[in-house]
């Protein structure tokens, strides 16, 4: 008598969302099972990885993380091209850290001009991520949405505090919103309802559940993502049936252990391999919890994850 593994019956399905436009556009979502549970459902579309590009030269990066980009660190356009040409990036995520009012405080105009240049230089889907200051992000993302009209960018983080303004321009100029809430299933659902009421079409919403790094709060996001997927697939919670995006590279690489040298941490092995593994493991765990899009930094972590994705999704 052969064993029948008890199956979960899934009644819901994750919405398919098109990222970018043209030849290099990608589609994510479409799952009808928990992540990679192909023995009882489908995951027709592979999760995708965006490579990070920063709007100002990184300071204080781990040498391993900086090394691949050292020659392009002060030129975001060249950086983005290098990601695509050298590392085969299927997507780019422009991190607009220098717009932070507590930092360089670069203007919305500057940010928009830069985004436009990058958008023109790349043909892959482009994510644009603000500085996490709701007020400033509103101003910056609005300007970008307008100046890059019709380019189908993914813009975020769109929060409870600025969804009306940013949502409105996203509708008007045809961009996708990254609906960001701090590790809470109810808040995630609520924001998606609000965006829907505002008129943002379902095909243009991504959930950012907020991601902590391995060893730094990862488990909270992991469980919230699992719960979001559970509600979406088994409880037909329609407002949670969106693909999830995790901006994890910057979280991992800011941790102490991802940066320490061999002298500083002799027990932690090879610093280069350690950083890469910390990023790849964080990515692997959020994938297991339901991520559809990952924003990552190191080419080697990305290659490892691509390899795992191929294995996990093999026919």
């Amino acid at each position, binding site marked *: 008598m052969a064993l029948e*593994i008890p199956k979960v019956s899934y009644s819901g399905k994750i919405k398919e969302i098109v990222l970018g436009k043209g030849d290099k556009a990608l589609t994510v979502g479409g799952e009808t099972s928990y992540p990679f549970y192909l023995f009882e459902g489908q995951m027709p579309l592979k999760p995708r990885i965006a490579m990070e590009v920063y709007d100002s030269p990184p300071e204080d990066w781990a040498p391993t993380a900086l090394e691949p980009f050292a020659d392009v660190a002060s030129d975001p356009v060249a950086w983005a091209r290098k990601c695509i040409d050298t590392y085969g990036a299927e997507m780019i995520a422009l991190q607009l850290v220098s717009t932070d009012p507590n930092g360089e405080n670069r203007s919305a105009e500057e940010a928009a001009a830069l985004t436009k240049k990058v958008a023109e230089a790349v043909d892959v889907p482009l994510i644009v991520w603000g500085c996490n200051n709701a007020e400033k992000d509103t101003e910056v993302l609005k300007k970008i949405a307008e100046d890059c009209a019709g380019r189908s960018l993914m813009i975020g983080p769109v929060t409870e505090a600025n969804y009306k303004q940013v949502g409105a321009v996203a509708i008007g100029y045809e961009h996708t919103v990254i609906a960001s809430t701090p590790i809470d299933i109810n808040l995630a659902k609520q924001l998606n309802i609000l965006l829907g009421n505002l008129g943002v079409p379902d095909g243009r919403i991504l959930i950012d559940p907020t991601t902590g790094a391995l060893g730094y709060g990862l*488990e909270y996001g*992991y469980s919230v993502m699992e719960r979001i997927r559970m509600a979406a697939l088994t409880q037909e919670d329609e407002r949670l049936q969106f693909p999830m995006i995790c901006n994890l590279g910057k979280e991992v690489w800011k941790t102490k252990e991802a940066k320490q040298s061999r002298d500083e*941490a002799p027990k932690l092995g090879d610093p280069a391999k350690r950083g890469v593994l910390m990023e790849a493991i964080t990515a692997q765990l959020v994938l297991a919890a339901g991520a559809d899009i990952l924003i990552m930094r190191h080419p080697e972590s990305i290659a490892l994850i691509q390899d795992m994705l191929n294995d996990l999704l093999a026919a």
Partner: protein
Amino acid sequence: MALSGIEIFKKLPKTNCGECGVPTCLAFAMKLATGQAELSACPYVSDEVRAEIDEASAPPIRTLTIGTGDRAVKLGGETVMFRHEKRFENPPGLALMLSDTMDDSVVNEKLSKFKDLEFERVGLILRPQMLALKEESGDAGKFAAFVKRVIDQIDAGIILMSDKPEVMAEALKICKDKKPLIYAATKDTAEAMGNLAKEAACPLAVKGSGLDEVMAITDKLMGMGLKDLVIDSQPVNVKKALEDQVGIRRSALVKKVKQLGFPTITFPGQLTDSKMKEALIASLLIAKYAGIIVLSEMEGHNVFPLLLDSLNIYTDPQRPMAVEEKVYEIGGPREDSPVLITSNFSLTYFIVSGEVESSRVPAWLLIKDTEGLSVLTAWAAGKFAADTVAMFVKKSGIADRVKHRKLVIPGYLAGMSGELEEELPDWQILVGPREAAHLPAYLKQWSA
């Protein structure tokens, strides 16, 4: 899994004699179901029924221990599929594989590295606890000598790996007192390995290709009276490894398949030649139910992230780890030493106090009760607001212990410094660095 009161009642004598201390069999059954009574209180249940009820109330996944003493590893006892439902109980044992065909010098080097792999985190010691000793020489004497050499050098949970019962028998003579895991009984050796395990009173791993073969072997061994079993389903690729782990856990929990109600053992190194990818497969297995994970290599750079993974996945999701609200003295602070403040989330406390310690600058660290929330989370939740922080600083008595009036707050909370200065007019509020890692440099140039 547990029977309901009614199910138990059906098996009782239904005479309502009251000798169990409750007036009716039904009332007794209800108490049993909720764990408020012991079956032994009723003198009239038959042995058969007793066995049935005992078995039905055992946890769906067997709890067992490998090894003895300090590095004993407890496995199994899991009751849920998702960690938000209830805490995952027993984190997987990480094992380093060593072979009896390795040079002595290689083995010694690997062992000394293994001993070094110990990390302190949130007040816990994280380390790999197991060694998988593999016979590849085909020589029973050589394997036994190898096992002896290893256990003389190190106290760890041992997994003895050989397909040959006669080789296993020799090795068990050396170390059965250490309660090693015997790896493994196959469909051909089930009986012989089963007998060895029974005699030595050691746990036994079952190796079969696929769950059906595994079940046939565990069934046979259970029939022989063996209870402490561990499962290896020999998946051929990563996808199958995930499927098997989910299948085993779910079958045991949902369908109560007894033949699969055991912890598992996995070998990510069998699925790839790359050490980096091996670590990544291991990271997934930690989240997805593996009981033991045997690695072909252990270095700080793969073990440390995997231990963090395990720590994260196995923490209690209902209860953030917190430390006590009070003034912590680090390095014997004096009246001119710096005063810092942070939240009582364990992770935050241990990171910050660790950095202060490593700065070698004696300091006062005020830990405010934030209900176990990190600095920013607490701030966003209103548990680290200027008024309550000020109240805590005042009642902490720190003003009597230092001469100066300078308080260092976390860099991420720069925005609250003005408000805090209003609440604490005697104090000057200094905004520290954002990341604790920059505290040593900051403290070294700090002056009262």
